[in-house]
């Protein structure tokens, strides 16, 4: 039987027959927990498996990224619970200095094409960016994977998305992402594995792939898989210190659904407050006064994203009433910003630069919005109340930068 990408990846990690709708026992190459959910995972493990809670410490990690460093005692306590558990069992912790776990596992060569990796971050399906199966799960699920290295999983049906057209400046992967989300809505991928094809997809850098894959969750999808090209295979192989062979779909694989997305004539987009799929052209909300601008998150927290923002902000200052924040995804990205003089540039432009992490999406170190505050952000979720009491628009780094300068929503 010809197989889709997800079917092929799952088949290499189970002894069960892989067929959409079937429940299989799936072997997991890597299991992780972040600071949100991590202490709950430890609690389950110590209650359920006090003798022998971790199957393989070398494949098990903590990644602290939500509240880094902890700014309340309860969060600090929870991180310390994870650290002490990790010490007792020989588990490596990517601590509060390291940045967003889903990016760290790519940088560290733990997530490679075709692998299976789970954790307590609902955006772990971002690993579809390297053609890997990543999946966010709850704390009971993850505790069970720490103990056994496996989980039950229902093989999802697959959707093939074919993108027609190219992404030319000032458009970027975020606009593509929002275009797809606006077209298919919050349940367009519900319970499915999505695969992306087309010239615009093949041309995406790793950072662009991360941006696209990161919002599978907002489409309801289990994962958004992007077939790895040479650049991705080479990057992951280098990071892992071994040759990696991308897993791709068979040509005659069967899909439950085909979706065509035409991005010819696409213009910069934003998602309006309340729903990531409430997508309109940035120009249509031009002039909406903003109070704050956020650059970062697992969706747009790579060097390339900040380079785009910097190219627009360079030599200028954000509008005097705008609070602008930069949060690099990882320590490695932070180092790149430092090395290329971008930190200084952001400083000169009047931007607050934070240590790496999730930032605003999780009551993190960079603060939240207040009632009446209007924020434009490169992040991925603007559900009411999530990033504070204010209203959040989602947009690309270019659109956020142009808006920060103008003090109101602007199209780059």
């Amino acid at each position, binding site marked *: 039987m010809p197989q889709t990408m997800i079917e092929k990846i799952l088949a290499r990690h189970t002894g069960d027959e892989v067929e959409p709708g079937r*429940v299989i*026992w799936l072997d997991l190459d890597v299991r992780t927990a972040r600071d*949100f*959910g991590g*202490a*709950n995972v430890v*609690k*389950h493990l110590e209650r*359920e498996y006090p003798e022998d809670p971790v199957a393989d410490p070398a494949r098990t990690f903590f990644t602290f990224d*939500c509240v880094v460093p902890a700014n*309340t005692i*309860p*969060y600090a*306590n*929870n991180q310390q619970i994870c650290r002490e558990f990790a010490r007792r069992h020989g588990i490596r912790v990517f601590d509060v200095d390291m940045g967003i776990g889903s990016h760290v596992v790519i940088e560290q060569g733990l997530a490679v094409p075709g692998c299976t990796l789970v954790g*307590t*971050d*609902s955006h772990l399906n971002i690993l579809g960016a390297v053609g890997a199966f990543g999946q*966010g*799960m*709850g*704390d*009971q*699920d993850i*505790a*069970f994977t720490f103990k*056994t290295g*496996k989980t*039950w999983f*229902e093989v999802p049906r697959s959707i093939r998305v074919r993108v027609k057209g190219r992404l030319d400046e000032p458009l970027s992967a975020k606009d593509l992402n929002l275009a797809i989300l606006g077209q298919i809505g*919050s*349940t367009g991928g*519900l*319970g499915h594995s999505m695969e992306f094809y087309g010239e615009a997809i093949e041309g995406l850098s790793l950072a662009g792939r991360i941006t696209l894959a990161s919002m599978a*969750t*907002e489409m*309801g*999808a*289990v994962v958004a898989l992007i077939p790895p090209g040479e650049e991705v295979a080479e990057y992951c192989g280098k990071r892992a210190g071994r040759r990696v062979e991308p897993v791709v779909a068979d040509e005659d694989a069967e899909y439950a659904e085909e979706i065509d997305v035409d991005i010819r004539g696409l213009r910069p987009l934003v998602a309006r407050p309340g*729903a990531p799929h409430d997508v309109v052209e940035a120009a249509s909300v031009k002039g909406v006064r903003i109070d704050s601008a956020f650059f970062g998150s697992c969706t747009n927290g790579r060097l390339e994203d900040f380079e785009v923002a910097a190219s627009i902000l360079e030599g200028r200052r954000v509008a005097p009433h705008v609070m602008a924040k930069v949060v690099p995804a990882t320590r490695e990205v932070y180092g790149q910003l430092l090395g290329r003089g971008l930190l200084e540039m952001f400083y000169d432009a009047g931007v607050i630069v934070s240590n790496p992490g999730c930032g605003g999406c*999780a*009551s993190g170190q960079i603060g939240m919005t207040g009632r009446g505050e209007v924020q434009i952000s490169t992040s991925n*979720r603007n*559900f*009411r*109340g*999530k990033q504070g009491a204010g209203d959040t628009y989602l947009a690309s780094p270019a659109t956020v930068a142009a808006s920060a300068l103008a003090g109101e929503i602007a199209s780059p």
Partner: protein
Amino acid sequence: MAKPTNIQGRIWVVRDPEGRPVDDIDTDMIYHNAHLAITDVAQMGRYAFGNLEGWQDFPSKAEPGDILIAGRNFGCGSSRQQAVDCFVSLGVSLLVAESFGAIYRRNAINSGFPILVCPGILHESAGGLASGEVLKVDLKTGELRKDGAAVARAQGFSDVQMGIYQADGLFNFARRHNL
């Protein structure tokens, strides 16, 4: 001892203050990230629906055994187990929605918390369903009955869902299967 596969309870139909069905209720509306430092399930109930407009007083009104009826993509968003556990904490006996966020669905199943997928239950059937009414639900067949008459049919429990439910959670289920 086998757990009941028929559940009877008073229903809460999740609508907005204007009486419209609400879809895409995300995990921050169900259980806001401000309360994530809590790890004791007993403490979670008081924050259920704490960020859902018009539903902030749900924890004080809900009684053990109550049933929730919700719309599409319920529990989308984060992976947080607390968004399931807060209902367990309140003693909610069953959650029926048109569809669930993928992670939410797993979390509920792994907790042994009964959920049923019932397309149309809020947008179509709920014309005839009102908060406070009593429903009788068969978890195996998915049949929902009011006053003895069938009002809707959800997808019944899958095998793995029933196994985990009967074992009262993933950990016991795995032990029964020597995992």
